């Protein structure tokens, strides 16, 4: 008999420091090894700012030096549960980056000249506020715009903009996730999925959620729990991502054909009768659907017949051919979904929804599978995100404004899920307006958006952009062209709250400035967070408060009153007062939890960094609601407002759609002129593979996958992360490489509709033939040796242009070691900064979702004589032509009732109802 050792976790495996010892934690200094040198730490929880997951962090602050020594996970965070990816601990690099902007900078030469002078915060705030005050007094509200990359806190800036009366919220969403959001919203009003991965039996991903993507860290750990319990995992991705390689089934579809597969799966489920009739009968708008398609029919089974008839041509065999995936793999998915029943979880966020014309139908057709199987809101199923994403109320919120900014919400895109942000250069070029004060907040349109040279043209045009204020924790390509660069705190240096759909529970996380909190615990007092932050780094909450105060110092514009302290109206509200109100008045259960420990709600959040609001959130649509009226359409109303829908004789919460049911047929879309799009359907993508010259040099380029250790602009100041990831070759299947005569490492020229870029190829079977791919996470550049971007991450470049809109970016040198206060900067051993491919992409606004369709139809060949690595050549006159071509695909508003946009669709900074009607109704 062999002895099996009884293993006991050793000291290396102790759990996290217990919370009761966070104020006095002793730990040996790893750098002092082999000596045992003990340090005393104060541990302060906060929230990571690097990706959107908002995972909990724990800052280890050395009591002796007052410095942050490291970041680890916060075990008290319900979403991330103490675990982080590489980007969380790298927050330390960002705090102590030697290239960090520590003081406000104002340009002292022409825009983009690299000439800056240090100014005081007072000077900057007064200058910006004065300009804004003038615009507001002159009724030029639409010339104030706030353009956000990574949002801080749901509702905070909305509140500020409401106080100003400005319809100026602009976001990155239409280059990010509007596609999938639209697909979900058309079903149920709610625009995202929340999968209960941990309890699922079958998981279908259109993402790489084990390595990257929205909420990947909280999701990945729960997907792995499910796999440990026997769940099957299938991944749809033309690339063999890390996630696909860990999956039971990998389905490398032709980009944009995914809806075809989902409809074929739906057809097969219907054929097998593997559907949940009770759920469909209760929760799908089948009566409305029948009334449209079969007015003579009124029986539920007629609706099932309608579904079968609608999708009859979508056979599995046809889908296998159309999607380019072996039939047996699709069958494995059908079998998995059927066996899982209501424990079927799925997720899509960007991927195909963000890559393709009509990509929003990927989410719409995927959700059809949940609707058919009744795996909506169930344990192990998938819920609307709104059920678990907790949004606290903000203190003293102003009423909705009554304006409609057509630079953000142009009439051609009434269904755009968010602002048509990436079209701003073209809309301005068309003379539709201009911007007098333009705030970019952790946003880098020159680098992130398609056709960055058109953005460069816009940002350097002082008639189009009067004043550009870049609020940023780090240099960026766009900040180079700003008028002010104002240093803002990273995740460990400011306040805000967060809540995301990570699992079947809702929670609220609290981001806080850890040095300020540690100082306060040690007995210090601070008026403002910048007093504790490095240099003069501010937090945005205080910035907006102080800026608003200076816009209206005497209160005559009606703005100041929203920012006055409730205790003393003669001074601005403090962040403590702001969050005290929020935590005491709008977070259920928090006051009680805090009281049980003898704490105030704010003290509780400062101590733990997060609170769980509700656990095991399932089947919210079934919850009963109080109603005083049931309409003929079944809508349950209270005081005239729809609050639910009657099902089985009970008024229930239902969903967020107009009918409060799941809308297979969207009457809204139909009424606004979209006929075939009104049901889950398969729309042809702009990169449809059958249209390509695949025997020649044409291929589909996928430019939107992330590298797991980087995150857009924000990680440029994290040396750890760039040491790990600093290359992004063009993935190319050997079949294609042989056909095109390309070897690994060879330079290739990739031509788009508006220009080309030059990068190196990588032969790999990890991508399907016909498709090539390069991550968008590299290709950072700077114009000047010592300013403009982080030298850990960027190449020094020169930019040439001609008067007719032809631009060329060429690298002068790659990444090199440099002298700084951090000796690591002289140890840089990598040189590749990547290639800024987004510059060469024209705008592709989807006519419905408004999403920029990122995938490109490209021609690939060996680099030409004279080409150099990293070259990007673009003709912006052509990109304007492409914009105009795509504009022809739209069906402009107004729609029924003279509306600019359906009122039930979500919208940031939502105006009053009167603003929805053209000319005020």
């Amino acid at each position: 008999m062999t002895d099996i050792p009884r293993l006991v976790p050793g000291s290396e495996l102790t759990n996290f420091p217990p919370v009761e010892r966070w104020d006095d934690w002793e730990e040996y200094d790893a750098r002092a090894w082999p000596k045992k040198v003990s340090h005393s730490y104060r541990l302060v929880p906060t929230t990571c700012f690097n990706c959107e997951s908002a995972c909990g962090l724990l800052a280890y602050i050395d009591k002796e030096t007052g410095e942050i020594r490291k970041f680890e996970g916060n075990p008290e965070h319900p979403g991330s549960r103490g675990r982080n990816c590489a980007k969380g601990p790298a927050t330390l690099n960002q705090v102590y980056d030697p290239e960090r902007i520590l003081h406000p900078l104002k340009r002292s030469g022409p825009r983009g000249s690299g000439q800056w002078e240090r100014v005081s915060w007072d000077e900057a705030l007064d200058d910006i506020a004065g300009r804004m005050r003038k615009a507001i007094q002159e009724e030029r509200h639409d010339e104030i715009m706030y353009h956000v990359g990574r949002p801080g806190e749901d509702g905070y800036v909305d509140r500020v903009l409401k106080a100003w009366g400005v319809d100026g919220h602009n976001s990155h969403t239409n280059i990010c996730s509007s596609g999938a959001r639209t697909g979900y919203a058309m079903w149920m009003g709610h625009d995202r999925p929340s999968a209960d991965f941990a309890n699922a039996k079958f998981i279908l991903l259109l993402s790489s959620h084990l390595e990257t993507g929205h909420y990947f860290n909280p999701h990945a750990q729960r997907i792995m729990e499910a796999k440990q319990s026997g769940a099957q995992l299938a991944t749809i991705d033309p690339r063999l991502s890390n996630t696909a390689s860990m999956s039971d089934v990998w389905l490398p579809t032709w980009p944009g054909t995914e809806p075809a597969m989902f409809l074929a799966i739906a057809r097969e489920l219907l054929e097998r009768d593997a559907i949940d009739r009770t759920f469909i009968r209760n929760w799908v708008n089948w009566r409305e659907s029948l009334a449209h398609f079969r007015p003579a029919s009124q029986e539920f089974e007629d609706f099932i017949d309608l579904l079968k008839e609608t999708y009859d041509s979508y056979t599995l065999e046809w889908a296998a051919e159309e999607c380019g995936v072996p039939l047996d793999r699709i069958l494995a998915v059908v079998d998995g979904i059927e066996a899982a029943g209501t424990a079927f979880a799925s997720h899509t966020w960007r991927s195909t929804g963000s890559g393709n014309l009509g990509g929003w139908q990927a989410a719409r057709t995927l959700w059809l599978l949940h609707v058919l199987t009744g795996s909506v809101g169930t344990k192990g199923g998938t819920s609307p995100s709104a059920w678990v994403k907790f949004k606290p109320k903000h203190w003293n919120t102003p009423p909705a404004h009554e304006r409609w900014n057509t630079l953000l919400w142009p009439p051609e895109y009434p269904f755009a899920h968010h602002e048509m942000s990436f079209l701003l250069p073209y809309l301005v070029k068309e003379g539709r307006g201009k911007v007098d004060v333009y705030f970019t907040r952790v946003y880098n349109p020159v680098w992130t958006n398609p056709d960055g040279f058109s953005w460069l043209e816009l940002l350097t045009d002082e008639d189009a952009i009067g004043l550009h204020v870049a609020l940023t924790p780090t240099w960026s390509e766009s900040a180079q062209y700003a008028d002010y660069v104002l240093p803002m705190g990273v995740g460990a240096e400011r306040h805000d709250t967060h809540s995301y759909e990570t699992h079947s529970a809702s929670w609220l996380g609290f981001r806080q400035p850890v040095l300020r909190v540690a100082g306060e615990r040690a007995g210090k007092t601070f008026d403002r967070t910048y007093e504790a932050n490095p240099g003069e780094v501010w937090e945005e909450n205080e910035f907006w408060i102080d800026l608003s105060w200076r816009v209206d110092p005497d209160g005559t514009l009606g703005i100041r009153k929203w920012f006055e302290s409730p205790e003393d109206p003669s001074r601005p509200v403090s962040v403590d007062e702001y969050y005290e109100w929020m935590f005491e008045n709008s977070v259920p259960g928090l006051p009680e939890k805090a009281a049980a420990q003898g704490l105030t709600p704010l003290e509780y959040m400062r101590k733990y960094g997060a609170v769980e609001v509700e656990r095991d959130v399932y089947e919210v649509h079934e919850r009963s609601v109080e109603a005083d009226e049931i309409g003929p359409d079944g809508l349950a109303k209270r005081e005239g407002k729809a609050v639910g829908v009657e099902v089985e004789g009970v008024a229930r919460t239902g969903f967020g759609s107009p009918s409060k049911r799941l809308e297979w047929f969207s009457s809204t879309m139909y009424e606004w002129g979209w006929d075939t799009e009104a049901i889950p359907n398969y729309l042809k993508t702009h990169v449809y593979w059958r249209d390509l010259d695949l025997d020649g040099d044409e291929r589909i380029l996928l430019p939107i996958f992330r590298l797991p250790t980087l995150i857009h602009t924000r990680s440029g100041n994290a040396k750890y992360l760039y040491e790990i990831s600093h290359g992004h070759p063009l993935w190319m299947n050997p079949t294609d490489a042989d056909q095109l005569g390309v070897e690994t490492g060879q330079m290739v020229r990739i031509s788009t509709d508006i220009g080309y870029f030059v990068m190196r190829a990588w032969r790999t079977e990890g991508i399907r033939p016909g498709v090539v791919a390069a991550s968008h996470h590299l290709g950072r550049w700077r114009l000047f040796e010592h300013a403009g971007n982080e030298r850990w991450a960027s190449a020094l470049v020169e930019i040439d242009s001609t008067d007719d809109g032809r631009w060329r970016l060429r690298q002068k040198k790659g990444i090199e070691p440099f002298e700084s206060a951090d000796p690591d900067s002289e140890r840089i051993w990598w040189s590749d900064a990547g290639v800024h491919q987004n510059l060469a992409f024209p705008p592709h606004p989807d006519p419905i979702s408004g999403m920029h369709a990122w995938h490109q139809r490209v021609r690939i060949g060996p680099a030409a004589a004279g080409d150099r690595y990293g070259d990007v050549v673009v003709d912006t006159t052509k990109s304007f032509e492409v914009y105009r071509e795509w504009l022809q695909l739209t069906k402009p508003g107004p729609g029924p009732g003279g509306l600019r946009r359906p009122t039930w669709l979500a919208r940031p900074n939502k105006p009053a109802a009167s603003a929805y009607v053209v000319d005020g109704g």
Partner: protein
Amino acid sequence: MTAAGSASGEAEFWRAAAESLSDIQESVGSELTEMAVTGFDPRPDLARRARRWSHRFDDHSAVSLTAFAAGLAEVESGAWERDDPIIATQALSDRRFLFGDRIVHWLVPVLLAIAEDSVAASALAGELLDLGDRHRPAPALTGSEGLYPPGHDSIGPIVESLDGAPLLNGWITDRVHIELFRQAGERWRTCAEQHPGTARLWLDLAARCDASAARVIMS
């Protein structure tokens, strides 16, 4: 099946594997070790892996390794039972890496080499390959992933191995013959096709067989 149940089932497998290997070792008359097969000394690495579980290896035989894996699976199962995901996932992770780094790449070839004379060895090799498909410690990717230093593959230094061919000796004993190399290569390629979770290891072996055949031709 629950996560605890799944880990518990694997603990049972590893216990049985340890028993079986004990019998196999007895029948072949010597300890089966990675060092004997590949020339790599795993002891410092194993000591590091065991330390965090307060364990010390008496030897580094296949029996000890599989017994350690059984212990890790038991720890994981218990941790899931008491809702301790940190310990559970660490035990799983350590077991997966132990399996992928220190067990499967040499033990499966050895077991297959003696499979003709040992039903137990044949069965255990098959079970290890199946387990590899579940844990996927070495899935086939592109073949040029850059996971190893130049001149190395998943087994070790390529040139050195070809000179001594210690791993291949198990297959071909003293019958160095081109056709045998080719056949061995084909068998490993088939194995890779059938077991994608460990395919990279077998493709590397197949490449070594091809290189060895080429070397014989050259000589």
